């Protein structure tokens, strides 16, 4: 006998079955559809075109392949298009450096000042500009074009099922996509997720997609070490595939970590939401490209230079102040070296990641400056010489792979961590947002290094 509200609730629970809400919503949608089909006449306009496009772009069969293809095309164009201007910029800065050196000599400046300003500050900054500007100037406008075209909500639509089955919110696909640009901005964008539990999931896992500070590192290492053995024509394609593999790995880790968290610390079932798929629009090409270049590329570049310039200085100082027989930098790297080796990396790489905490953009320049400050001062004009520096320091493809993995999975940059604190107002979750990725990065690189070495592949 159902004679109390508790019994009624209990009884209804026994009648429940999974997905009943989905069935209800589907029935509501089908009813509106049938009503509107009878009574509304649409002109042959964009609504129709949008619907037809959506049938392909969000179809269960074609949705994912098209998404991967788009990602591949964007990465490929970035890599392929950035090669030439990158080298040209590097050459230009090399020439500038010669003039600067000549000027310092003519003025009779002391060699420490030349070292500090030219070899430290100037070289570090020019490196960041020549490696980062071209890919960003290509990547951001393409991303902005896809966004303005209306494709990003479709990505969220496609990914919804994956996120839902990992216990997260479908909108996390959107915040994840933002993360490809900048993780700190993406953390702020998680405000679109209402439920605190799902928002926390999105915040904690956002770091697993590479931001613009890490794209150049991934692209550079992939093209230097993974695509080296291939013919010139296919090198860009191989690089693209490797970078895509890293991105997909990042997405898989995102889903896996979301799933584990939603089964443990952040238990709960995903809430439902309405995702508006706005009609596709033809983006205003020139406007979009201009805005993306000016707003994003230059903004990010400015930040990179502001952080990179002092970091270049600090690295140079650390590398040139001697304690006993060795520089401070050497002491640090020697100390970190055993741990680095265990992860298939080395002491320099770990030091670069630690000093690179303020911004991921400067990890590579710091690493290079660290290597250069201890060895002969080679100028880095082209990719062959660049690779030689790495190989001279005992790099193999495993080192490159593990550095890519570590870069993908390690703690977020200082700005992002600060943003996480501002958004969550919780010290505990902020610390976890750095500890979880770092633990994963260490575990994954450790296992990779030992498996590869154990199989005798390097």
């Amino acid at each position, binding site marked *: 006998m159902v004679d109390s509200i508790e019994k*009624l*609730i209990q009884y*209804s629970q026994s009648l429940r079955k999974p997905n009943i809400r989905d069935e209800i919503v589907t029935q509501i949608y089908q*009813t*509106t559809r049938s009503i509107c089909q009878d009574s*509304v006449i649409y*002109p042959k306009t964009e609504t129709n075109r949008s619907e037809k496009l959506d049938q392909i772009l969000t179809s269960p069969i074609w949705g994912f392949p098209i998404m991967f293809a788009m990602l591949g095309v964007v990465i490929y164009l970035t890599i392929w298009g950035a090669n030439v201007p990158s080298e040209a910029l590097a050459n230009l800065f090399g020439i500038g450096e010669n003039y600067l050196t000549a000027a310092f000599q003519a003025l009779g400046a002391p060699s420490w000042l030349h070292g500090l300003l030219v070899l430290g500050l100037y070289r570090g900054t020019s490196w960041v500009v020549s490696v980062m500007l071209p890919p960003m100037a290509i990547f951001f406008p393409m991303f902005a074009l896809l966004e303005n075209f209306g494709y990003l909500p479709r990505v969220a639509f496609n990914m919804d099922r994956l996120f839902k089955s990992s216990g997260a919110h479908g909108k996390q696909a959107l915040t994840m996509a933002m993360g490809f640009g900048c993780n700190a901005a993406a953390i702020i964008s998680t405000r679109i997720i209402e439920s605190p539990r799902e928002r926390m999931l999105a915040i904690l896992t956002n770091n697993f997609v590479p931001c613009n500070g890490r794209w150049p590192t991934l692209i550079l290492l992939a093209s230097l070490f993974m695509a080296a053995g291939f013919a010139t024509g296919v090198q860009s394609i191989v690089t693209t595939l490797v970078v895509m593999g890293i991105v997909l790995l990042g997405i898989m880790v995102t889903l896996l970590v979301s799933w584990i968290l939603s089964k443990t610390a952040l238990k709960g079932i995903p809430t439902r*939401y309405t995702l*508006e798929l706005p009609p596709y629009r033809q983006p205003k090409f020139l406007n979009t490209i201009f805005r993306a270049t000016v707003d994003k590329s230059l903004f990010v570049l400015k930040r990179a230079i502001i952080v990179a310039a002092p970091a270049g200085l600090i690295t140079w100082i650390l590398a040139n102040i001697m304690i006993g027989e060795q520089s401070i930098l050497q002491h640090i790297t020697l100390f970190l070296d055993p741990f680095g080796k265990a992860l298939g990396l080395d002491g320099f790489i770990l030091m670069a990641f630690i000093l690179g905490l303020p911004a991921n953009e400067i990890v590579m320049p710091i690493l290079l400056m660290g290597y250069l400050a201890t060895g002969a001062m080679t100028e880095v004009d082209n990719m062959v010489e660049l690779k030689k520096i790495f190989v001279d320091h005992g790099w193999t493809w495993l080192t490159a792979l593990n550095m890519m993995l570590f870069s993908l999975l390690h703690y977020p940059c200082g700005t992002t961590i600060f943003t996480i604190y501002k958004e969550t107002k919780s010290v505990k979750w902020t610390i976890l947002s750095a500890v979880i990725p770092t633990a994963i990065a260490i575990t994954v690189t450790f296992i990779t290094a030992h498996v590869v070495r154990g199989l005798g592949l390097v």
Partner: protein
Amino acid sequence: MRHYRIALAGNPNTGKSTLFNELTGLRQHTGNWPGKTVLHAEGSFSYQGNSYTLIDLPGTYSLFSNSADEEVARDYIIFEKPDATIVVLDATSLERNMNLALQVLEMTEQVIICINLMDEARKIGIQIDEKKIASRLGVPVIKMAARNGEGIDLLLKTLHQLVTGKISPQPLTIQYSKEIEEKIDELIPHIQNLIGNSYPTRWIALRLLDGDESFVQLLKEKYSKGKLQFNPIRFPSKHAN
């Protein structure tokens, strides 16, 4: 002279606030819903000797408990039982908007549908047969362009007829799968037994079935405080006759 409370529901960006301002003019005040950080706007107007209070519910895409906004809107319609609910739809994306209307129709039959932004829809060339929609939904449907004042008079006239009982809507009942319908039929007598017919029993049965935790919790609370049994019966139940 009688006094009526009217709720205004709709998706975001449908011109709901324009209609609210058009009807109430300067006679409105805003605040927060009790205990929620959701804006509460209320205004008043009179028509043909009766006075009306218009409550602007938060703009939502649905009335499931996905957010504080949706809970506020849902709770108002279910527990405060306005004398009528006006659902504002965007004529340029009617199909997406109508989902909300169907959800409101499951909660109350005192509904008027306003298809707003007709001026924009006409500009794009969208043609809407509101009589057909009205016959399917079983409630009055009015085409309007609130910002030009188009359709306001008809809305007021229809509202008057609805609250004074000159129109009695026969709202569409959405038919679910046989399995769900059987479960609804099993639950309804028990719900009626506990809280009578003053609340939409079919809608409550659906929420109990789809496990809407926030609503179930609220129902429990209200019931144990005795609020459900003693409420004046204002809701004419679909199962009453």
